[in-house]
């Protein structure tokens, strides 16, 4: 089963490079995404066997992150069909400076998307920290061409920043891997392998100073990729310049993968009795991230960048939740699910808005409800979901985390957390509501035809799912989330 999960996207990627017919390639793309999510669905009922001496195995955290990735990718593949169709007809003129550009060939774009899915799948199933590193770096390389889909100078700049900053970050995580290998080496007898299960089992034999140093490098290295402030500088550029479908995947799936890598090292530190050290670092980075994001959302004039900074905020909340631990770990895991669904939805809708208005400046977008009604409604619903209004899922997960903070008498952190969330709520409501309401500017033709099933159904379904998770968490998911929370030191 695990080989199938990895091979399906790889084979489909290879095929999509060969196939010459656009429609056939799109059918292949969607069916590969369908097969992948089908396999993931089966993995919930029967745990797949470990392969390669336990190097590749689906444990509870892996399965959770794999499922999020797979569902989001399925939604994205469906959205992509409509998007690529639209792009084909679209005049390739830059709306900011009027220059002409071309797109990356569709075959390469789809192949890179599928390769991206394959590498993320390897991240979620790998139990060996070295292999995990290799897969993480591979995600960077698979996504670089995706950001450069519209071949103009701004996307090129974003691609360069992304490639260089993330590669350097991941290189630092490699140093963390070597430090961990030092921590696991013994002067006499067998060294501990870098397999997660071995490291956890022999946690108390690891060399503490080197282990701590290793965690620091992991946090800085993978934290760069995850978008924890102040290491997030690539993130707003990459998210605002890439096509919306890529932004959705970067935000909802890739950042999670980097988070999973940090969770793995946190698991090792907890096993070695050093969870206090790693938790306090996670809390510090988490707080910095939400505060930093709040400051930049406050004066934001570009709605895609606003969504990108919102991702920085939510990654901060995740780090904070895991750091606080206890019941907050459960809240953080629920938050991973809800954030991915909501952010995917918002980026898809942002894509619709961009297609209709041809601007990313939020002040030039007015009256979405009048021009593209379905997207307008989804935009408002997405706003309610992302800022954590009940009854959406994010409300429940943010509330769980805040409650756990009070229960553990971490009142200072809780107050800072709630104050920043309130600030973000205020600044976001100004942007979102102004965009949705009002009178549409002159020159925007009524585009009733531009809303199709392809660009409305995926965000709508994602939104409905996060709404359901706010009202009712199915028992199987509840069990799974508790299991993951237990694995990372909570309950």
């Amino acid at each position, binding site marked *: 089963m695990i080989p199938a999960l990895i091979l399906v996207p790889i084979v489909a990627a290879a095929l999509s490079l060969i196939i010459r017919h656009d429609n056939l390639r799109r059918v292949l793309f969607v069916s590969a995404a369908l097969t992948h999510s089908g396999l993931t669905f089966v993995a919930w009922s029967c745990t797949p066997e470990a392969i390669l001496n336990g190097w590749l195995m689906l444990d509870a955290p892996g399965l959770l992150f794999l499922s999020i990735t797979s569902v989001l990718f399925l939604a994205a593949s469906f959205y992509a069909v409509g998007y690529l169709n639209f792009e084909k007809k679209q005049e390739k003129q830059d709306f900011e400076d009027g220059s002409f550009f071309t797109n990356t060939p569709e075959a390469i774009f789809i192949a890179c998307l599928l390769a991206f899915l394959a590498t993320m799948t390897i991240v979620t199933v790998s139990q060996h920290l070295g292999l995990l590193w290799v897969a993480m770096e591979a995600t960077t390389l698979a996504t670089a061409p995706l950001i450069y889909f519209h071949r103009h100078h701004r996307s090129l700049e974003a691609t360069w920043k992304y490639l260089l900053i993330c590669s350097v970050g991941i290189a630092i995580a490699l140093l963390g891997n070597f430090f961990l290998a*030092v921590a*696991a080496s013994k002067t006499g007898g067998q060294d501990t392998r870098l397999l997660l299960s071995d490291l956890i089992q022999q946690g108390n034999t690891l*060399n503490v100073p080197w282990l701590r140093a290793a965690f620091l490098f992991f946090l800085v290295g993978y934290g760069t990729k995850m978008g924890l402030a102040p290491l997030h500088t690539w993130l707003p550029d990459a998210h605002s310049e890439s096509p919306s479908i890529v932004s959705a995947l970067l935000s909802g799936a890739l950042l999670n993968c980097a988070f999973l890598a940090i969770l793995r090292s946190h698991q090792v530190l907890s096993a070695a009795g050093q969870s206090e050290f790693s938790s306090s670092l996670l809390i510090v980075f988490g707080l910095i991230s939400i505060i930093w994001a709040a400051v930049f959302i406050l004066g934001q004039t570009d709605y895609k960048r606003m969504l990108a900074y919102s991702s920085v905020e939510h990654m901060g909340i995740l780090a904070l939740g895991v750091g606080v631990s206890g019941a907050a770990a459960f809240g953080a895991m629920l938050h991973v699910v809800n954030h991915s669904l909501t952010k995917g939805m918002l980026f898809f809708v942002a894509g619709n808005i961009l297609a209709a208005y041809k601007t990313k400046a939020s002040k030039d977008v007015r009256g979405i409800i009048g021009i593209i009604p379905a997207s307008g409604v989804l935009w408002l619903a997405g706003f309610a979901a992302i800022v954590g209004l009940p009854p959406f899922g994010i409300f429940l997960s943010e509330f769980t985390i805040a409650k756990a903070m009070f229960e553990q008498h971490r009142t200072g952190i809780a107050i800072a957390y709630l104050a920043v969330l309130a600030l973000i709520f205020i600044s976001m409501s100004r942007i979102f509501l102004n965009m949705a309401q009002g009178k549409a500017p002159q020159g925007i033709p009524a585009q009733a035809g531009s809303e199709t099933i392809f660009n409305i159904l995926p965000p709508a379904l994602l939104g409905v799912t996060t709404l359901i998770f706010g009202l009712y968490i199915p028992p199987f998911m509840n069990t799974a989330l508790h299991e993951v929370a237990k694995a990372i030191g909570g309950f």
Partner: protein
Amino acid sequence: MDNSIDTIMVLLVLMNLMLLGLSSLGTCIRVVAAQGITLGILPLVIHGGIFDIRLTLFSAAIVGLKGIVFPLLLSWAMRDVNAQREVEPFIGYGKSVIAGPLALAVCMWLGSRLPLPLDIVSPMVMPVAFFTIMCGLFLIVSRKKALSQVLGYIVLENGIYTFGMVLAEKQPLLVELGILLDVFVAVFVMGIVIFHINREFDHIDTDRLSSLRS
């Protein structure tokens, strides 16, 4: 044996110092290539000339990649660059060269503070690895040209690799090859992006890539 390891370490330090002071992009590429070849020999020297097919192949892969493929790739990317072939530092060569030995001293001190818990091949390896990493990071942040940033990335990777060599046997082959492959593809993709930057802007100065703000 210790002698030859130390010789290699000294060579690495000298090459790093050279990179800090060099102005010509072409020469920089050649120095980085020489550094790659030196590193490729390192695993063979560490294991004291005992013939091991796995180790030999690994060495050959590194020499081939860092000594031949990367320089060719980067020279290709540089071929069409119209701008002057100078690295154009933000921080002058003089200051860079002075900063070098200072950083080396800090790394030596750091190396003495963090003793390795295993039998170490040479006490020089740790400080030199750290110094190479620092030089790599310095080259990335202090040079304007996209190409010199890639060179900085390779130097950074060389430093990490030097450290990894201490643990040569601790990493499974699959992971080692995966790391090499990733680095190869990374430099390859960076080369392509530089090619595009050059075509789009007629220059590869990253400080002029500044239309995206906050």
